[in-house]
């Protein structure tokens, strides 16, 4: 019997623990697209682009040409330039808003999951209040009162993300706080601050970061929806959402004007979703969890 058990044990040990979780070509294609959009947006000022706001009334809805690679929009503005400048808005709002969410939500979630008790009840309760509002409705109402600007938009979408980040951080902290290494640290007399920052944070960070990427995708969509309704970034600044909204007017004559920003936005959102999901799957111990 003993040999048999040993045999099985060895066999298990020989089979590597490597699971079929390699990052496929799709993952790298997503990374490539994200890099491309990011670089184009960052270098928009340095690239030899036409102005995103200069109108050319003689060249309205011009098709693709050497001068206008992707043609011009309903006011004769260069479509490619506006797409690239639009990427700036989407990325600035899309990246900054979840930073607010991950910082405040992450901190609240970790504190709630570590200290428990009344503080946890208070945090979870107040998040329930925030979650009681359908997110887009709250975003619309607040932009209506505060006024439309990139800063306001980022802040509102950031605050709306706090409950979700709080839940992820709290759930991760709850399970981790009971693990041996935390108990060991407590036994060694480590302070709460040290346990939270040195023991828990490095472990909570990865699931939070995977969720951050999904948050970026959601925020880009939300910003797009608000701009599409004309309640996002004020004109003449171009944003993918407002470009799709403007393109809708000329769907019969030039469907390209709605579809170009739409495809760009779809690919970007899809990329963030793909990368976020791949990272989440890596950090999720349950195999094949959706």
């Amino acid at each position, binding site marked *: 019997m003993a040999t048999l058990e040993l045999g099985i044990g060895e066999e298990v040990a020989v089979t590597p623990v490597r699971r079929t979780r390699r990052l496929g070509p799709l993952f790298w294609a997503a990374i490539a697209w994200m890099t491309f959009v990011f670089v184009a947006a960052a270098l928009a000022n340095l690239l030899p682009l036409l102005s995103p706001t200069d109108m050319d009334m003689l060249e309205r809805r011009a098709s693709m040409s050497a001068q206008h690679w992707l043609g011009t929009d309903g006011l004769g503005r260069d479509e490619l330039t506006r797409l690239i400048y639009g990427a700036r808005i989407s990325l600035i709002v899309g990246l900054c808003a979840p930073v607010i969410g991950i910082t405040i939500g992450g901190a609240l979630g970790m504190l709630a999951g570590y200290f428990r008790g009344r503080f946890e009840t208070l945090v979870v309760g107040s998040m329930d209040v925030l979650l009681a509002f359908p997110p887009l*409705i709250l975003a619309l*109402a607040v932009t209506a009162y505060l006024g439309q600007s990139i800063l306001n938009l980022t802040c509102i979408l950031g605050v709306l993300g706090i409950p979700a980040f709080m839940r992820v951080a709290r759930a991760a902290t709850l399970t981790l706080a009971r693990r041996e290494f935390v108990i060991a640290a407590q036994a060694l007399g480590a302070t709460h601050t040290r346990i939270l920052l040195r023991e828990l944070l490095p472990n909570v960070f990865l699931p939070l970061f995977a969720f951050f990427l999904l948050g970026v995708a959601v925020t880009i969509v939300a910003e*797009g929806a608000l701009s*599409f*309704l004309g309640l996002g970034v004020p004109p003449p600044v171009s944003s993918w959402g407002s470009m799709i909204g403007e393109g809708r007017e000329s*769907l019969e004559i030039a469907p390209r004007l709605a579809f170009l920003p*739409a495809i760009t936005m779809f690919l970007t959102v899809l990329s963030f979703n793909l990368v976020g999901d791949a990272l989440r799957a890596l950090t999720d111990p349950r195999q094949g969890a959706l």
Partner: protein
Amino acid sequence: MLGFVARRLLYLVPVLIAVSLLTFLIASLLPGDLAYVILGDQATPEKVEALRHDMGLDQPVWWRYISWLGHVLQGDFGRSFRTGQTVLQAVAERLPVSIELMLLAEIIGLAIGVPLAIACAVRSGSVFDRFMTGTAFGMLSVPAFLSAILLIYLFAVELRWLPATGYVPFREDPTGNLRFLVLPALTLAVAEWPGIMRVLRSDMIATLQEDYIALAKAKGLKASRILFVHALKPSSLTLVTITGINIGRLIGGALIVETIFALPGIGRLLVGAIYTRDLIILQGVVLLVAAGFVLMNFVVDMLYAVLDPRIRHGHA
């Protein structure tokens, strides 16, 4: 069960109070004086002062909140200073449109999502399953306003089968009403089915590995009976839980879809109130929608407890 319902109901009270407080604070603390909005920029300071006094805007914030809440609890949400309509009238007029839209969307979403989920779960890991899971994942990245544009282009501009915008009430012209609602509902359903499919599929795969399913197979029951009668109900628990989240997304989606397709629903009322700075309507509608959303989530919780006895006995 009764104790469980009572506990959940009691929890609703502070949440609803906080929701009303937050709605009120957003409306009153942020810049933009209501009196100026009503009278316009040309108003003399005396006139503005007089109106502020009439409306009670010169009272302290906490007092205004208490008196507003008092009116709300008596069913008085105020009236629009633009149309003279009360908030409740405006909402009652538009609510049926939104509800019809969301119901249709949910029905289409379930009609696509549930069969696909079952088909994928039965052949999990097959080419079909992987293709559909991939498609669903891709569809999750398509925002409502994007699929709306695509559907309008396809069915209204190119094929000319359906109208792009407009609305007739169901009572006046049932087929016309449905024709106007197909595209908006389809738009919302495009965003709904991937979530339904993903959740149901993974739960279904787990259920199909249970012993009682093997027993049902051994008894020689028909595959369709096993899938729909034995496996569907225990697999739909997570689906019911996420319904609450779905409703929230559906309300947000309905807001965009109603604006695009010019449907006179709650979402359009809200967007219109924002454009015209009709703050009373805005405040009333936001409160009603949020309160309705909280109550719907409560109902979902209850439904969940009915489906799964472990929840109501407090050891889930």
